[in-house]
C-alpha cells in the first residue's frame, strides 16, 4: 500500500441513568413525542441545570473501564450554536476539564490511547413532515446524558477500529454505563481519518465521517475514504478538512460542511453549575463497585473454569449470555458441560428462533438441571438436546419435559444384577481371561449385557454393576 491511514475516533455513548443529566425527566427510549420534557430540558427562561450524580458516577466507571485517570476536579462548559433541536442554543459539555483523561486500550497488536472522556447532554430531534412542509421539534432526547470518548489518532487499519469499537461497546455494557447499540444510536462513532505516504511521519489533512451505525458501515466508510483520499493525492490534489456523511445505501461519503463553514462554538465555563469534585476515596469506592469486566471474566473462564479460549470469548461477547452462563454454573459447577450445551444447543435454538437470551422462557437453573440429569444418568446426552429444544418452544422444567416425553432412562439395577450374573456365569473362561489382565474383554461383557437387557437401559448403570461384579468375584 502506498499510503498509511491514520485514524482516530470520537464515540458518543448514552448513559443508562434513570433520569436525564440536568433534570428529573425519565431517560428512556421511544414513547410519544415530547412526553418526557420539563421546563429545564426544554430551555424555558429562568431554569437552571442540576447535575445528576449518577451520570457523574457512570462516566467515572467508563473511565475506569477504559484505563483512564478519573480526575478529582472537572467542570462544565457551554458549547454555543443555534439549531432548533437545541432549545437553550448551547450544549452543556466538559471542554477544559473533562472527568477522565489518559486511558489505554490494547487491541490486536496496538495500544490505543484514550485522550479523554467527558460528560455532555444530548440534543433533541427534528421530525420533518414533507407532506405538510413543516418541521417539528421532539425534545425527548434533550438532556439525555452522554459521554464522549475521544481517542488519539492511533489506529492504522480498519480491523483495529472495528475490534476497538466492539471492545469499547462490550466494556461499557459490562460496566453498566451504556447498552451500546450502534443501530439504535445509543453508541455513535465518528471517524477522523487522514492518509500519509508510507515513508512519512507527518499526518495528512483529515476528514471526519459521521452517521456510522454498524461495525460494517464503519469498515466500509473507512475503506471508501482511504480510496477517495488516495485518489486525490495520486492526482496531486489536496484533501480538504471537512465533515462528511456516510451513505449506507451507496457506500460512499458526501461532504456536509467544510472547515470554513464549521461553527465557532465560543466555549466558556458554565456559570450555572459548580465544578465537580471527586475525592480519591470516592474514586476507590467507585472502583470497588465496578462489576467484573470482560477481560477479568475471560481470565476466570480460561484459568479457573478451564474453558477453551475461543469458547470463553464467544460466551463473553454477549453480556446477557455470559451472565446466564454464570448463573447456571453457580447452581451446578460443571463449567465445560454447561458451556458446551449453551454454545451448542442453546445457541442453535437462539439462532433458529431469532430470540436473545434475555427472552427465553427458561432459567439458568433449568440448564443446570438438564446437565445434572445427564450426569446422574437420568437422561442421555441426546435427550438433553431435546429438552433444550422443547424448553425453547414451550418452557417447562427439564424434569417434567423428560417425563412427558419418555426421556427418563430406566433404573432397573436389581434386574440388571441378575442379567450380569447370568452373563458372567455363562462365560467363566472369558472372565478368567479378563482377570488375568485382558481388560479389553470388558467391552465384550458390556455388549452381552446390553443385548440381554434391551434398549433404554442406562449404559452407565451396566458399567457400574459389571465393574463391581468383576472385582467382587476375585
Amino acid at each position, binding site marked *: 500500500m502506498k499510503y498509511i491511514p491514520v485514524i482516530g475516533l470520537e464515540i458518543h455513548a448514552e448513559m443508562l441513568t434513570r433520569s436525564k443529566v440536568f433534570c428529573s425527566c425519565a431517560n428512556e427510549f421511544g414513547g410519544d413525542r415530547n412526553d418526557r420534557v420539563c*421546563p429545564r430540558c*426544554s*430551555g*424555558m*427562561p*429562568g*431554569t*437552571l441545570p*442540576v*447535575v445528576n450524580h449518577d451520570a457523574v458516577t457512570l462516566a467515572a466507571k467508563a473511565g475506569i473501564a477504559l484505563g483512564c485517570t478519573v480526575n478529582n476536579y472537572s467542570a462544565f462548559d*457551554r458549547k*454555543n450554536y*443555534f*439549531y*432548533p433541536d437545541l*432549545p*437553550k*442554543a*448551547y450544549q452543556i459539555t466538559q471542554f477544559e476539564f473533562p472527568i477522565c483523561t489518559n486511558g489505554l486500550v490494547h487491541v490486536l497488536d496496538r495500544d490505543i490511547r484514550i485522550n479523554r472522556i467527558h460528560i455532555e447532554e444530548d440534543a433533541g430531534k427534528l421530525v420533518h413532515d414533507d407532506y405538510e412542509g413543516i*418541521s417539528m*421539534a421532539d425534545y425527548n432526547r434533550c438532556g439525555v446524558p452522554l459521554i464522549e470518548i475521544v481517542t488519539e489518532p492511533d489506529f492504522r487499519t480498519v480491523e483495529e477500529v472495528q475490534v476497538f469499537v466492539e471492545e469499547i461497546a462490550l466494556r461499557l455494557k459490562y460496566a453498566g454505563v451504556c447498552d451500546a447499540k450502534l443501530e439504535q444510536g445509543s453508541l455513535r462513532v465518528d471517524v477522523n481519518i487522514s492518509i500519509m505516504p508510507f515513508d512519512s511521519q507527518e499526518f495528512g489533512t483529515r476528514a471526519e465521517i459521521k452517521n456510522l451505525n454498524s461495525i460494517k458501515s464503519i469498515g466500509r466508510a473507512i475503506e471508501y475514504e482511504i480510496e477517495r483520499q488516495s485518489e486525490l493525492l495520486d492526482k496531486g490534489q489536496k484533501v480538504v478538512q471537512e465533515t462528511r456523511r456516510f451513505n449506507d445505501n451507496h457506500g460512499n461519503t458526501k461532504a456536509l460542511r467544510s472547515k470554513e463553514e464549521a461553527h*465557532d462554538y*465560543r*466555549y*466558556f465555563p458554565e*456559570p*450555572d*453549575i*459548580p465544578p465537580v469534585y471527586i475525592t480519591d476515596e470516592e474514586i476507590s469506592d467507585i472502583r470497588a463497585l465496578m462489576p467484573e469486566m470482560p477481560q477479568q471474566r475471560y481470565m476466570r473462564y480460561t484459568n479457573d473454569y478451564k474453558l477453551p479460549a475461543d469458547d470463553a470469548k464467544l460466551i463473553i461477547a454477549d453480556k446477557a449470555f455470559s451472565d446466564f452462563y454464570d448463573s447456571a454454573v453457580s447452581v451446578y459447577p460443571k463449567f465445560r458441560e454447561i458451556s458446551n450445551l449453551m454454545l451448542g444447543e442453546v445457541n442453535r435454538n437462539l439462532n433458529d428462533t431469532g430470540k436473545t437470551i434475555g427472552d427465553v422462557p427458561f432459567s439458568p437453573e433449568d440448564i443446570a438441571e438438564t446437565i445434572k440429569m445427564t450426569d446422574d444418568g437420568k437422561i442421555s446426552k441426546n435427550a438433553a438436546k431435546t429438552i433444550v429444544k422443547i424448553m425453547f418452544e414451550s418452557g417447562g422444567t427439564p424434569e417434567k419435559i423428560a417425563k412427558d416425553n419418555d426421556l427418563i432412562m430406566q433404573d432397573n439395577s436389581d434386574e440388571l444384577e441378575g442379567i450380569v450374573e447370568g452373563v458372567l456365569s455363562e462365560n467363566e473362561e472369558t472372565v478368567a481371561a479378563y482377570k488375568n489382565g485382558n481388560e479389553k474383554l470388558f467391552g465384550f461383557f458390556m455388549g452381552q449385557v446390553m443385548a440381554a437387557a434391551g434398549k433404554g437401559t442406562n449404559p452407565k448403570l451396566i458399567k457400574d454393576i459389571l465393574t463391581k461384579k468383576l472385582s467382587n468375584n476375585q
Partner: protein
Amino acid sequence: MSLKDLREKLDSHDLSVQELTESYLKKIKKKDKTLNSYITICEEEAKKDAKAAQEIIDKGQSKALTGIPLSIKDNICTKGIKTTCASKMLDDFVPFYDATVMEKLNSENAVILGKTNMDEFAMGASSCTSYFGRVKNPYNTDCVPGGSSGGAAASVAAGLCAAALGSDTGGSIRQPASFCGVTGLKPTYGTISRYGLIAFASSLDQIGILANSAEDTGYILNEIYGYDLNDRTTSKKAAGNYLSKIGNSLKGLRIGIPKEFFSDEIADEVKQSVMAAAEYFRSCKAELVDSSMPSLPYAVSAYYLISSAEAASNLARFDGIKYGHRSDTGDTYNELISNSRREGFGDEVKRRILLGNYALSSGYYDAYYKNASRIRKKISDEYAQIFAGCDIILTPTAPTTAYKAGYQENDPVKMYLADICTVTVNIAGLPAISTTCGYDSNNMPIGMSLIGKAFDEATIISAADAFEKDFAKKEAVI
C-alpha cells in the same frame, strides 16, 4: 410605615389586607400612568391574594409576609402571569412555573401587585431601554429612575407597593435605589435562589430587595433566602437572621474607605455627601480605615466582557422556535431565527450580544474573556485584602444623581463607565446595600453603598439602619 409595623397593624386587624391592597391599586392607577413603573398590574390576582391572606390572618396563622403588597421585577418568572423582561421578544410570554422566590412569597400569602418595568433583559442603568417605554423618576419625572430595576425603585419611592423584588447584575438594584431615594439590598451571590430569574449574566445575577428602609430589606430577605435544590449556585452559608444586628452600637465598627471610589469621575456633591455620612459613622465611634482597590480602573471592562459573554449565551435560547416573538418571515431555520431575533431584541441587547460573542470567539477568547476572568480574581483578592483591615466598606453608589432622560443613552461607553461604583461587588459576589445619604442642589437623592463580607448582610443592614434612623428623608414629589 415599616413592614414590621404593617405586620402588626394587619395582625391586630387595625387594617385589612383588602383595604391595604385597594389603596395601593388606587395609587397605582393614579400615579403609574405618569411613572410607568409597572408593565403588568395584577389587579384581579392581587384582590384574590388579599382575600386569601386575610382569611389566614383571621385564623391567626399569618407569617411575616402574609398580606404584604409587593411588586416583582418583570424578569422573575410568575406562573400564569406575563413575564416580559421588558422585551418585545417576551411580549406575550406566560411562564408555566414559578421562580423559587415566588414559591416562597406565595407560601406566605404575600400579595403581588404587579410586574415592574426595567431595562430590556436588565441591560441598562436608566430603565429607558424597555420595550414598554421609559420609567420616570418620582423625584423629577424628567429624570431617569436608574436601572435596570428602575420600575421597582420607582414603585417603592412613589408608594406604589410596600416593597419590591429586583435583580442586580452590576448595580441594577443599588443604583436605581440611589436615584429614587430608597434602600436597595443586593445579597451575597448564592443567598437567594436564581431559579426562575430570567438570566442576564448567571455568575453575577442576584435577586434582591428594594424597600423604604434597610430594616425592611432584611425583613424580606429573612423570608426568601436559602439553599435551593433547583439552583446549585445557592449556598448553605446563607445564614438568615438578617435583622439580628439591628440596634447594635456602631462603636468599634471598622469602615474601609477605598480611595479609588472617590476619584474625579465622581460628582463633588456625591463625594461630599458620602464623606458626610462617613463623618456620621465616626461620630458613632466607628473607625474609618483608609483602603485601596488598585484594580478598580479595570473593573468596568472586565464586568462588561464577562456579563456580555454570559448574556450572549443566555439570550441565545430566544430564537422564536419555542416561545416568544417569532418572525413572520424566513424560509430556513437560520433565517427564521435571525429574523425573530432582529425583530425581538432592542439595540442595547443586540449590542451586548455582539460584544459577548466577539469576546468569546476563537482567537479573541484569551485576550478578552480570559483576561477579564483574571481581573475578576484580582478584584476578589483585593476585597479580601481590604476586609482584612475592616468590617464593612463605604462607597458612593453612583458617580452622579439621576440625570435627565435622553442625556447619555446614546453614548454606551459613558453609560457603562457610570457603573464603576457598583460592578466590583457583583464581580466578587459580595453583599451591598445602598441607602440615601443626601440630596443634591436639585433635590435629587444621593446614595451611598455599604459593602459587607460574604454572607454578612446583617452587619451592613444594621449600619444602614443606624444611619437611616438619624437621617431626614425627603419624600418624592409625585
